[in-house]
């Protein structure tokens, strides 16, 4: 398969879908399915040509293992989510543009991961940013789209600065050579500015503000892509900032924390903070999508810590967590979208008992959150396990503490939508609702299967990661047939799964052989002699963790920081306006004279 064809076809189909949608909305939506599946299959077949270099137009590309890995994850999220597109077309204000932007941003991500030079990377990157900005605005909040753009822009402008600064030293934009020759203060400046776009995209504190806004308010069909896909673009930048930019080598002379140079450790600490912030905030949310968005913040922290470790185990964990989180998060968002498709809301307090109406969606969501919480036998467990092992190996106590906190906290928040949306009493409004159709179910089931497979046969994914590790020159994680071996112990995910099945079977058998139980309605519960006949009232879903939330409800809001900065810029603008502009010439005369005096004095005349 040829990357040129993939890119060309997706871009062309993007344009075509724009016009087709004008004729027939549904057809346009189906076209995005076709296009993204095509891209996925094409990318999958691309593995054979890894190492190839070529250029299209003026862009130059190099097919690398890591690029392939990232692109595959990304397009997986796109293609799975695209199945939902045809069903949401009627609700879109601009269906044509949506489809166009959807495919354009997908092409952008593909191009970005295979870019050989930074300018190509940046062009594709920004294309993704603006096209997704225009998609998000179609959702529930205009402000969200704005916040998304601003935070992205902070990142990408910083990265552009870094690229340019590196270019001024090395004279090349080629990713593998661009950072050569940097040292000292310039190296630190480039490192921090370069990774900024990564941090912004992953949603690392304090750039995490866009995730809840954008994920929570984007069209339901785009949130899975945002969380499952676009966030991973940031991980790619993080990856580059320790590999293409040899951070460990350049900073090797610096002060070290637990064997890690301080700048890198600092970023890891930011990752740890985002785990904590993401977890705490996710626990608080009342909207299922916002909750999942904050969980993405927390998971982004894991990914960042893992990738920045750049070692045998933790790095593998971080890279694998990419897949696991992408799959699980996309599945969870899709499940919520499916529910929203039927109920029209994502507020947890406005739903209940959907399990009785949409059991498949429930299973999908259950598996997704098990994976996100890192519970075996799903994929998320393996990657978190690797990250823990890596941290334990290095003795990074505080990072580990944050990681544990996030891991256990995730039980808390993932359970909330499960309980509030799916369990409990079905609301009267929803009693007649049906499960979504097969076409929408299909991607969810695929993702669920992938989640389980990743947990049972993690080595399939880890083998790709070992190749990536080899390509960046670190020793790959040791893999036996089904076993992952680390210094501190080993994990045989398959056997864990089998034993789990064994235990489950015993329990099941005991359950089955006992007498059959009598079915009773959910309204038929013990309520301490109170009689409540309203389904909605009997369902406990809002303020789920109220006593816990109370402990930190006075915590500062990061958004306020941004608002403050915006106010300050506005004040500068105000000042400019009132100082220099008006309808009286005297103002300008005054400034001309002042500037004149100033200039002459500065110029050294007087």
């Amino acid at each position: 398969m040829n990357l040129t064809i993939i890119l060309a076809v997706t871009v062309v189909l993007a344009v075509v879908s724009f016009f087709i949608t004008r004729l027939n909305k549904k057809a346009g939506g189906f076209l995005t399915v076709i296009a993204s599946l095509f891209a996925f299959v094409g990318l999958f077949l691309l593995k054979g040509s890894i190492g190839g270099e070529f250029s299209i137009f003026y862009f130059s590309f190099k097919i690398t293992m890591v690029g392939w890995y990232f692109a595959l994850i990304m397009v997986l999220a796109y293609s799975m989510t695209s199945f939902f597109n045809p069903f949401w077309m009627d609700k879109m204000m601009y269906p044509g543009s949506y489809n166009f932007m959807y495919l354009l941003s997908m092409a952008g991500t593909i191009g970005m991961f295979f870019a050989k030079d930074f300018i190509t990377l940046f062009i594709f990157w920004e294309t993704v940013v603006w096209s997704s900005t225009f998609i998000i605005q179609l959702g529930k909040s205009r402000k969200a789209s704005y916040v998304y753009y601003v935070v992205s822009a902070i990142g990408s402008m910083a990265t552009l600065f870094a690229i340019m600064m590196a270019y001024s030293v090395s004279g090349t934009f080629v990713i593998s050579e661009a950072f050569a020759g940097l040292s000292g203060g310039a190296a630190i400046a480039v490192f921090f500015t370069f990774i900024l776009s990564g941090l912004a995209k992953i949603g690392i504190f304090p750039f995490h503000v866009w995730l809840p806004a954008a994920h929570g308010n984007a069209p339901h069909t785009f949130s899975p892509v945002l969380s499952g896909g676009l966030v991973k673009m940031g991980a790619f930048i993080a990856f580059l900032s320790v590999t293409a930019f040899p951070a460990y080598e350049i900073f090797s002379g610096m002060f070290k924390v637990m064997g890690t140079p301080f700048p890198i450790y600092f970023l890891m600490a930011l990752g740890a903070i985002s785990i904590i912030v993401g977890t705490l905030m996710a626990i608080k949310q009342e909207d299922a999508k916002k909750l999942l968005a904050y969980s993405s913040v927390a998971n982004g922290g894991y990914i960042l810590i893992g990738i920045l470790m750049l070692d045998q185990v933790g790095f593998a964990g971080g890279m694998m967590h990419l897949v696991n989180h992408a799959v699980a998060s996309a599945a969870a968002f899709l499940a919520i979208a499916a529910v929203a498709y039927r109920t029209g809301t994502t507020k947890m307090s406005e739903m209940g008992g959907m399990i009785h109406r949409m059991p498949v969606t429930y299973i999908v969501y259950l598996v997704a959150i098990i994976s996100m919480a890192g519970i075996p036998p799903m994929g998320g467990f393996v990657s978190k396990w690797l990250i823990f092992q890596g941290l334990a190996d290095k003795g990074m106590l505080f990072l580990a503490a944050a990681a544990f906190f996030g891991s256990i906290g995730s039980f808390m928040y993932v359970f909330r939508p499960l309980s509030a949306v799916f369990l409990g009493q079905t609301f009267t409004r929803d009693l007649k609702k049906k499960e979504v159709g097969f076409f929408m179910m299909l991607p969810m089931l695929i993702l669920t299967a992938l989640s389980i497979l990743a947990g049972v046969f993690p080595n399939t994914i880890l083998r790709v990661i070992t190749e990536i590790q080899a390509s960046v020159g670190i020793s790959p994680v040791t893999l036996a047939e089904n076993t992952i071996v680390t210094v501190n112990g080993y994990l045989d995910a398959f056997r864990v799964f089998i034993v789990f099945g064994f235990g489950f079977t015993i329990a099941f058998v005991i359950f089955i052989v006992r007498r059959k139980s009598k079915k009773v309605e959910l309204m038929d519960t013990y309520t301490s002699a109170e009689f409540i006949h309203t389904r909605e009232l009997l369902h406990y879903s809002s303020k789920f963790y109220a006593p816990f939330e109370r402990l930190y409800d006075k915590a500062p809001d990061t958004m306020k920081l941004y608002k403050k900065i915006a106010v300050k810029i506005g004040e500068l603008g105000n000042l400019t306006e009132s100082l220099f502009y008006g309808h009286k010439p005297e103002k300008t005369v005054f400034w001309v004279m002042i500037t004149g005096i100033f200039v002459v004095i500065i110029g050294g005349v007087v």
Partner: protein
Amino acid sequence: MNVMSFVYGFLVLLGVFVFQTTLTGLNRKVTARLQKRYGARWYQQFLDIFKALRKDSTSHGWVFDFGVIMALGGIMATVIFIPVAGFEAFPGLDNIFVISYLLAVGMLGMAMSAAGSGNPWASIGVARALTNMLAYDVPLMIVIFTLIFAFDSSSLSEIAALQQGMGILGWNAFRMPLGGIVAVIALLGMLGKKPFDSFIAPTEIASGPMVEYGGKHLGFMFILHEFMTFIEVSIILSLFFGGGATIWEYMLKYAVLYTFMNIISGVMPRFKIDQAVKYFYRVPLAMAIVQGLVVIFTGLGVTLWF
């Protein structure tokens, strides 16, 4: 992995069930005596369980059933991985992370089933249980992390074995005293013993979920509880009290530790859930971090002190 492993696993399950249920029965007696009551017979617990399993039950829908099965299945799988006095049904899989996360499957199943009952009290119980877990687990995990760092192993049996043969001072509880204290406090939380039993809270919310369960469901819950207790006590036993070189030593130590927990619990009042969180994040967390820093930076406690 062969058939024998499964047979062994099954035997472990049976043994653990008998042992722990007996112990629970005995401890009911101990608690009663503490409270100046006579108490039930030691085998009452067995009677309760088998009676419940025989009776009719009501179900609140498939997730109510599924949750119970998933909970018991997950917990039983976890028990199989627990090394008892060096014996493992599946050697090498006693990874501490695997065990503690597999435990979560059981908990999740239980929570799901409870919430699936549609009883709002159940949801409150779940919320508290999860909050409680967040409270005790972070300090405990930091201590465990310290152990892994110190011994370069995350295997329960290996860590237990490393403490043996040096007498009582070889136990991690004494080599790392702060960590030991944290572990014991955390164990109280894990077991849901006072002062950290607000999620069970017999007089407040227990009437909620518990009354929804009857018959085999309730029986499952009983069995589940026994297994869970065993897992939790065993983890702390292996990590901090040297496990046991022989099965008898192990059982003895186990009984002492468990009874000790019960005795503490018997004389304690109860924390509100937010108080529990606050408490765990003040004292044990600080102790755990201090312990961790000491071990990581000084190496003190990795070897014997004396």
